[in-house]
């Protein structure tokens, strides 16, 4: 029979190993495996339990001086880390696909290449219609918000 030293939150601390209990509805198995993989250089890890109700992660530190509670807490932190990463990467999936599609389609463009912005004498070509520095800036500002104002100094100026 295994003697249990203490139970803290979702952790059981034994003499030379700890067991972290996880809810698979909160942490998907892929996240648990990722966090367990991260832990491998610090501890031996065995995953057990029921994938539907409760997943148990047993960790035995490679170094005897490691604090088991701290190790368990680090594992819990890493679970959140990977869970957030998974959620974010799922949210950004379409955006990443679009960026890759756009980058790849750039290589398939046909037609003449754009003229160089700089000529041989190192002067900027003004024949580029899309060059923002070559065109006078026009701003639609009917209320004259962009006007240069005198700095306010007296209290009356602020009214």
């Amino acid at each position, binding site marked *: 029979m295994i003697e249990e030293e203490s139970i803290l939150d979702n952790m059981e601390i034994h003499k030379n190993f700890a067991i972290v209990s996880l809810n698979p509805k909160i942490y998907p198995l*892929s996240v648990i495996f990722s966090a367990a993989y991260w832990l491998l250089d610090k501890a031996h890890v065995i*995953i*057990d339990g029921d994938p539907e109700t409760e997943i148990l992660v047993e960790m035995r530190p490679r170094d005897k001086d490691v604090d088991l509670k701290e190790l368990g807490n680090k594992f819990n932190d890493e679970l959140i880390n990977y869970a957030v990463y998974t959620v974010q990467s799922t949210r950004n999936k379409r955006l990443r696909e679009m960026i890759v599609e756009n980058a790849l389609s750039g290589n398939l463009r046909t037609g003449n290449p754009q003229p160089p912005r700089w000529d041989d004498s190192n002067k900027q070509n003004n024949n580029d219609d899309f060059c923002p520095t070559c065109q006078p800036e026009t701003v639609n500002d009917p209320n004259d918000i962009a006007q240069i104002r005198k700095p306010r100094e007296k209290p009356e100026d602020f009214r």
Partner: protein
Amino acid sequence: MPSITIKEDKCIVDLNKEFYPESIIKKGIEQFKGAKKIELSTKGKVFITTTKKADLEEIGYEFCDFLLTLIQGGNEV
């Protein structure tokens, strides 16, 4: 819970099939280099023997870690 037991100079690794599929265990047995002899029983237990004066339990845990590496190799988040 104990997944690793030592009996008669043999390390017996009994893992949960829900998390460690048989295909991964077989692949692990083929590729694991830390033991002299390693075989899978009909009940799905892994028997590890070694001639060296090595810590059998440690080898068992190393084997489990190796399986986790194989699982994660095809499932990176």
